[in-house]
């Protein structure tokens, strides 16, 4: 049986843990709001880019010298997986989910006889995957000293991937990240980057908006434009994934810290009950001693 002093010590320590988790929850909630706002702000660009790509892609599709980024290298042998995770833990199963998803994909691809290359973004995913797949690593990127993820980082990453594509280092590039479904649910998912999936060019969309499907003039030519537009699109896709990852991370951390706070509360209740019982028992025992002592005299 723990002594009263021990119990008091434990209650105090759990109380300070609860204070910390509560503060972390609040911080995560504030950062989540900011991350969501940032993701919201990035949406208009992505939408317009998609519209432009759809009309351009339709013009170039089928041409044999369409850019590589659009049609790929024509092979399907070497896969580059870009795995995006967070920089920090204390966020429930957030990083583990993405890591586990990536591991399953790597295994599945290798079982098919493909070559897999891994590029990780975020410290947590790097440590998770490096243990098992360090021979497949082509690099890892960490933003732990970047205060706020900007388009700059995404652009850098896209340039790196483009350079690898031009050097013929892979055939297919896939992005694995936690999609932000809601504050309490993030789903590990994958998205193909190269060859670029063209947004569906549904002729009904502009008609619904009351515009005639326009026949565009291009300056410079379609192919030069597309060659310039596709890397931008790649950067945008990565940017979106980075933002969703950030928002998802804070959401997950908020949920995890909320649970931790609640658990700490339960624990404090249990310990307090235990403490009171022990105190009561001590008093009873002392009373018995006094009474029996008095009777003996």
């Amino acid at each position, binding site marked *: 049986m723990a002594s009263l002093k021990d119990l008091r010590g434990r209650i105090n320590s759990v109380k300070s843990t609860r204070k910390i988790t509560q503060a972390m929850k609040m911080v995560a909630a504030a950062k989540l709001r900011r991350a969501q706002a940032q993701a919201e702000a*990035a949406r208009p660009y992505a939408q317009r880019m998609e*519209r432009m790509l759809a*009309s351009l892609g339709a013009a170039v599709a089928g041409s044999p010298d369409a850019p590589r980024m659009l049609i790929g290298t024509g092979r399907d042998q070497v896969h580059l997986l870009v795995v995006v995770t967070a920089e920090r833990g204390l966020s429930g199963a957030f990083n583990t989910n993405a890591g586990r998803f990536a591991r399953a994909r790597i295994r599945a691809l290798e079982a098919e006889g493909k070559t897999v290359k891994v590029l990780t973004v975020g410290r947590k995913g790097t440590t998770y995957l490096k243990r098992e797949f360090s021979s497949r690593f082509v690099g890892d990127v960490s933003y732990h000293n970047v205060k706020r993820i900007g388009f700059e980082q*995404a652009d850098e990453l896209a340039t790196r991937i483009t350079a690898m594509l031009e050097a013929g280092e892979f055939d297919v590039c896939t992005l694995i990240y936690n999609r932000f479904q809601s504050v309490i649910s993030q789903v590990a998912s994958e998205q193909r980057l190269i060859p670029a999936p063209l947004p569906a060019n549904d002729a009904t969309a502009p008609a619904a908006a009351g515009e005639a499907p*326009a026949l*565009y003039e*291009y*300056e410079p030519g379609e192919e030069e434009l597309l060659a*310039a537009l596709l890397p931008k699109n790649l950067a945008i896709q990565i940017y979106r994934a980075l933002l969703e990852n950030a928002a998802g991370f804070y959401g997950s951390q908020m949920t995890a810290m909320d649970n931790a706070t609640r658990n700490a509360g339960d624990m404090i209740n249990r310990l307090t009950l235990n403490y009171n019982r022990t105190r009561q028992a001590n008093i009873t025992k002392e009373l018995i001693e006094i009474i029996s002592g008095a009777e003996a005299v």
Partner: protein
Amino acid sequence: MATFDLELVSPERLLLSRPVEMAVIPAYEGEMGVLPGHSPMIVALRGGVIRVTEGGRETESLFIMGGFAEITPTRMTVLADEATPLATLSRAAAAQRVTEAEAALAAAANDAPEIRDRASDRLQAARAMQDAAQAA
């Protein structure tokens, strides 16, 4: 006077979205003035200044680091890589960019022509930024 809808977006946010009378954009093959009823076009942009006219006066001028524009008779959408209002452009930052771009171009001297082209485009955009900063 007739107007068309101008939208200016950068990856990080929507900068401008309202009807204007005229906009001059730095198209890849030279400055281009856009008025309502322009024929549909998609153009690449280089580094330069976008000037917006409303009510017969120039109301906005922003520097962009290149991008794309989609033009239809009723609207124009500009996707800018980076956009800064001319008034807030800093000379020191522009000069630093030029130095960086020059170094990048020198480093790319032995790379594939596409990479070299990209570096030289970037240098030109940085020089345009410096010019714009000096004029402002």
